[in-house]
Structure formats: C-alpha cells, structure tokens
C-alpha cells in the first residue's frame, strides 16, 4: 500500500472496510475460478488442454494468494491467506457469481474463462495505475498473465464457435446460459464508488464499454451470436451466491475444516 492510501485507510475506517471488501472480490473471483479449473485435472479432452487449464488455475490461485494476503493486512485482525481461503463460509465469499458456475462441458468452461479473462483484462489494466501501490503491483503482474489467458480462451472460443455444428451448438448454448451472470461484472455499488472516489480503482463505466467492444470482436471472430441482456437475481460480489459455491467450498475447505490447523 502506498503511504498515502495507507494513511487514508487508517484515518477513514469506512474506507478501510470498503477496500477490504474490494480486494476480497478480486481475490475470491480468482480463487474460486482457479478451484473450478483444478477440477479438470485428469479429465480434460486432451493432455495439452489438461496442462493448459491447470496452468491457468495456478496463475489464478497465485493471484488470489497475493490479494488475500493483502486483504488480511487491511483487515488487521491477524487473518492470513489460509484463514481467509479456508475458514470463511459462502456468504462471506465475494466472488463474481460467474466464477462459481460448474465446469459443464469444455465449451462451457472456455466461455466462462473467456468472459472472466476479458473482465480481468479491463479491471487489472485500470488497477495497474491505482493510487494504492500494492494493488497496482499485483495488478501489473496479473495483467501479463491475464493477457496470456485471454489469448488461450479467445483462441478456443474461435475454434469451437467456428468449428463443427456440434462444437458451435455447444458453445452458443454455453454462452446463452452463462450470459445472465455478466450483468454483475460492471454493476457498480457503494464499494466500487468509494474505491473510484479514493482513486484506488477506476470508474467501471469506461471499463464496461471496453469489455463490451472486446467481447463483440471476439464473438465476431468466433461467428457466435451475442445474447440479449437478461435479468440477474444473484450478486456474488455482495455474498449472495448460487448454491454451487457451497459445494465447491465443501470440497476446497474439507481438510482445514476437519483438521483445523493441519500442516504437511
């Protein structure tokens, strides 16, 4: 954290709480998506993609560790990355609802990945210029990895969408079923507004426009149709999740919950 924003957070308790929640949203989205991708290990269609998905998961979990560590420091209650990852329940997780959606088939996983990669590209490129030096450093690092992820996911999107009738049908179906969860990506609430006002994060409207343009271009290359906007009753950013998250956490947290404090 920069000296300036550290001092501001100490002075302003509400700002500190908002920053904690903001960093958790980023961290939890990466962690939950990384855990989902890990479910593919040993099950992907071919070995190369098995390795590819595992590598994406590694990067995402690495980003989550940096962010969770920082969140714990902002909170100042002695919780480290492990306490935050393994000992919170679903309503305390603030990831995007999209990230927790089940893997489905390979097309489903690719569409989910591509939508979040495109979102992270915009969020991280803005955060790389944040007044919060710690977040700026994490974002600049994550951005390089995210560019690589997007190349992978948009490449697969084009091959599947512009592929056989079967791959095309499955990819369009995945897009149509996941699209409703994108309403949340750039829906600013009081946390986002406070971050923007403090110069920590950029306003979400320009990022949303860039995201939409990129998504439209990628869909064009994949010859897929953009779905119509859909109503969205979930708000993972606020801890309101689909039931899928509970099952994911049940598996991810099982060991620490059963044997608290266990170590290798």
């Amino acid at each position, binding site marked *: 954290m920069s000296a300036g924003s550290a001092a501001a957070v100490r002075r302003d308790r509400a700002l500190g709480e908002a920053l904690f929640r903001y960093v958790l949203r980023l961290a939890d989205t990466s962690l939950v998506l990384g855990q989902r991708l890990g479910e593919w290990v040993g099950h992907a269609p071919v070995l190369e993609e098995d390795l590819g998905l595992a590598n994406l*998961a590694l990067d995402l979990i690495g980003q989550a560790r940096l962010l969770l560590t920082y969140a714990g420091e902002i909170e100042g209650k002695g919780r480290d990355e492990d306490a935050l990852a393994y000992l919170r329940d679903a309503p305390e997780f603030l990831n995007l609802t999209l990230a927790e959606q089940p893997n489905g088939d390979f097309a489903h996983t690719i569409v989910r990945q591509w939508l979040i990669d495109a979102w992270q590209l915009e969020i991280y490129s803005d955060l790389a210029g944040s007044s919060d030096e710690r977040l700026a450093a994490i974002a600049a690092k994550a951005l*390089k990895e995210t560019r690589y992820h997007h190349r992978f996911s948009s490449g697969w999107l084009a091959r599947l969408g512009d592929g056989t009738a079967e791959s095309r049908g499955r990819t369009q179906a995945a897009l149509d079923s996941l699209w409703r969860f994108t309403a949340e990506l750039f829906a600013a609430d009081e946390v986002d507004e406070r971050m923007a006002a403090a110069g920590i994060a950029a306003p979400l409207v320009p990022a949303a426009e860039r995201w939409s343009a990129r998504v439209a271009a990628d869909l064009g290359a994949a010859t897929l149709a953009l779905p119509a906007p859909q109503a969205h009753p979930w708000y993972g950013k606020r801890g309101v999740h689909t039931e899928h998250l509970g099952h994911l956490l049940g598996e991810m947290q099982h060991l620490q919950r059963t044997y608290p404090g266990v170590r290798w």
Partner: protein
Amino acid sequence: MSGAAQSLGVEQQVWQLLAAVPDPEIPVVSIVDLGIVRYVRRDSVGRLHVGITPTYSGCPATAVIRSATRAALDAAGHADALLEEVLAPAWSSDWVTPAGHARLAAFGIAPPAAGPARCPRCGSAATERISEFGSTPCKAHYRCTECREPFDRFKCI
C-alpha cells in the same frame, strides 16, 4: 575508499553465490540467469539486502527458490542478509540473461526470443505451436516441422 571497494566486493561475491542457485524446475539455469534476483545491495549501516521477484504469480517453484536463496546466503556467512520479495516492476521474460538463453537452448528449451520459435535441436524456424501451455507455468509446447521433434519454448511475457 578501501571500504567502498570492499563493499563492492561483497556484493559481487553474493551475485556469484546466487548464480550457483539453480531454478528448481529447470536446473540448468540459475535464478540469476532467469532474472529472478533483482538486486544485491548494502544499506547505510552495511546490512546486505537481496531482492528476488516471482516469475509467475502461481509458480510452485517460488517458495523453493526463496528457501534455496536463504540457505545459500546462510551457508556463505550472510545469515543477517535481508531477503526481500519484490513485486514491482513485474517480472518479464526479457530479463532472462544471454547466458540463460544459451543454457536453455543447450538443454532443449527454446529461449524467450522475439520472432518465430527456433527448434533447439535442428535450429529450424519451421515450427508450430501445439499448446499455449507446457509442463511448467513458464513454458509453451511446440513442434518442429523440419525434424519433427516436439520441444518446450519459454513463454514471452
């Protein structure tokens, strides 16, 4: 003047020491070859500071590199040296040194150079990418269409 010369000497010794710490996943290259060691310097009270940076956020080798660096410093009598993890600026494959490029190529891994990947076995530039990802976070998977051998290429980021 002799004090300044001496302190320069210690820093150079530490660089040499760290140049012998291998990367745990690609042991033919050292952590200096990969650009992981960012600085070795002494502060105003003479305490040694060593800065290292992770390559990829999720690289499982990061913790091993940290402990191997610590062990190398301790074994050489620098137990009081401060080992600092640096995040910014973010690591880039551009930081892999020329010596690192040569060692990677000799080991059969195409180094992270701009332009088409060259086959590390036959030298041909007639190569194709099989996958964006390989056996470690820092590598992608390629194939030479000349000699037909598959090979790893260090990712450019």
